[in-house]
């Protein structure tokens, strides 16, 4: 492999890794605060992408406005989901596993309602010309996505940090993450904070979905499944619940997928196998993930 080839692979890995990182942040944030794996996260990605798609197609919104609307409506869908699928269970003190099953159910529900309303065929997602513009640096092709996606990821990372560590809502979120009953005793409105968390997580999912759809402009109601699973795994490898960990996990997964083929082109068909063997190795050495904290069972 020549040096230019290596640089091209490196660029490709940054597109993919930053995208995974972006999506994994949303996963890990909801888990970190609620200890709930929101399996419908992958579907929320696609919900966001489809709202943006129809905003442009039917309502003729300028793309940036359509994206903003999609993020807001995506957050709304997330909150509704919490209200319908999770809160009733939580208020009956259902065990975590029931919430998990409810999340999986929500995921299937969203997929199938999408198939009924939208149909299963691919839709071509609109790409603002600026994002997909390509520049040739010597033999290396670079798209503006190379800067856009990591920039968005960084902005979100900063935003999440600011919100969680510098605002009163964030303080309440952290209190909730530690202990529900005590947080309630301190006068925190638990339902409201959880709704905020879901709004934020789902808004992030919508952003991730829009970025994903711009990079790979073919969307259909089941398109969220694979990125959903992969980014969940990225979040686990980074240490689920830890936001910088999710970013690191996302980049590791992206680099493994690309570099696996770069170094072993004849094993291209085994791409996911190669990537996941390495991830398994990482987890067997660091069972709680790279940046995960040791979980102490509360008695």
């Amino acid at each position, binding site marked *: 492999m020549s040096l230019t080839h290596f640089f091209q692979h490196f660029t490709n890995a940054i*597109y*993919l890794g930053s995208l995974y990182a972006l999506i994994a942040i949303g996963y890990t944030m909801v888990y970190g605060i609620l200890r709930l794996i929101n399996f419908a996260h992958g579907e929320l990605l696609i919900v966001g992408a489809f709202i943006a798609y129809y905003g442009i197609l039917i309502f003729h919104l300028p793309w940036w406005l359509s994206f903003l609307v999609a993020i807001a409506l995506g957050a709304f869908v997330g909150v509704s989901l919490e209200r319908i699928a999770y809160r009733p269970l939580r208020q009956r003190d259902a065990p975590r596993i029931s919430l998990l099953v409810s999340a999986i159910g929500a995921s299937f529900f969203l997929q199938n309602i999408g198939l009924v309303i939208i*149909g299963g065929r*691919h839709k*071509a997602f609109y790409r603002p010309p600026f994002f997909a513009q390509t520049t040739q640096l010597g033999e290396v*092709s670079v798209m503006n996505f190379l800067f856009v996606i990591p920039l968005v990821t960084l902005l979100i990372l900063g935003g999440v940090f600011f919100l969680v560590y510098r605002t009163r809502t964030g303080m309440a979120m952290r209190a909730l993450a530690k202990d529900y009953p005590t947080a309630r005793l301190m006068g925190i409105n638990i339902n409201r904070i959880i709704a905020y968390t879901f709004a934020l997580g789902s808004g992030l999912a919508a952003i991730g979905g829009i970025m994903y759809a711009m990079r790979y402009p073919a969307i*259909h109601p089941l398109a969220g499944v694979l990125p959903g699973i992969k980014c969940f795994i990225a979040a686990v490898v980074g240490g689920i619940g830890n936001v910088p960990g999710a970013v690191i996990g996302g980049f590791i997964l992206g680099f493994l997928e690309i570099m696996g*083929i*770069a170094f072993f082109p004849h094993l291209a068909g085994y*791409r996911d196998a190669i990537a996941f063997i390495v991830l398994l190795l990482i987890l067997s050495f660091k069972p709680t993930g790279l940046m995960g904290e040791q979980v102490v069972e509360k008695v």
Partner: protein
Amino acid sequence: MLGKRFGVLLVLLAFIMVFSGTGLADEVRIGVYEPLTGPMAAGGQMTLEGIRLAHELYPTVLGKEVRLFVEDNKTDKAEAALTVSRLIELHRVNAIIGTYGSSLAMSGGPVAETAGIPVMGCSPTHPLVTEGNDYYFRACFIDPFQGHIMATYAYHTLGAREVAIIQDIAQDYSVGLSHFFRQAFVELTGDPASVVGMSSYQTLDTDFTAQLTYLRGLNPDAVFAPGYYGDVALLITQARELGMDIPFLGGDACEAPEFIEIGGQNVEGVAISTHYSADAPVTEESTKFVEAFYEKYGHAPSAFAALGYDAYLLILDAIERAGSIEPEDIRFALSQTEGFEGATGFITMDETGNAVKTGVILQVQDGEFIYAGSVEPQ
């Protein structure tokens, strides 16, 4: 208490059995299993358009009404086998049409064979769909021919001497076609090294940059991508973004409006092989089909619509010749099909149950598939 419930259940069961059995003698039940959702949804839906049109134009056979039972196999191999069982066990069909996607057909085939119900494939082109299965037939040509068409096109029309291939290893169709293309191309050049590189991906993958960067480094004259429309459109888009401006070629699974919608400017000039083009009618039935299709749907029919149409007509023709709606009689009549005039051409079944037919080459020009020539069977 328990006895009472059991009684109610028995009565219900009896009702179901009575009603599902009624009308079996005075109607013909044709099952359809196609991918109406999932990554191959466009293929299944286009085929269904053709089948429904044929049903509308020819609603009866032997004085009996024909009823269609449509099942969605969801582009899933396990689901494909299940839908065939459902058509046979629940809907008690006399014959089946399906399915787009060779892997799906190969999964549904054995179920139909065990039950003794004949299946008329519309577009599954992998040789193993019909091989060793006396109950599976198809209205289309098979992949060794398709590989030959595209290899010849690459060698003679494009003047390519070194090609690369990128295949979907999760699809029997893609792996098979890639193999036959390679064989045909090496035969033309006489040099096994003329296929300079092979790479693979899997259905549902969206990022092909690593494979493409690898192939770009081998400097091929053209790339053959025998995958399904959605994947190949994304793949070619990414190839252009990586600065690869060499010609790309595809197979019949690229023919879908989505291929052009997703690929846009990037798929301009891409050539694919397929079964039929509305621009080159071959029989009287083709003209009739194209006109009726325009009237019903308002756009030109795809090759898959035409094959769905022919698959339906072939079954009706077999029932007519057999003078019976018994699955075994239909199967025998299907195997004897000779010179049947369909929308896609004259269809004769060979001893394996494959149609021997002309192939068509289409090329994307100004956002449309344009007829670029026909290739006669060898």
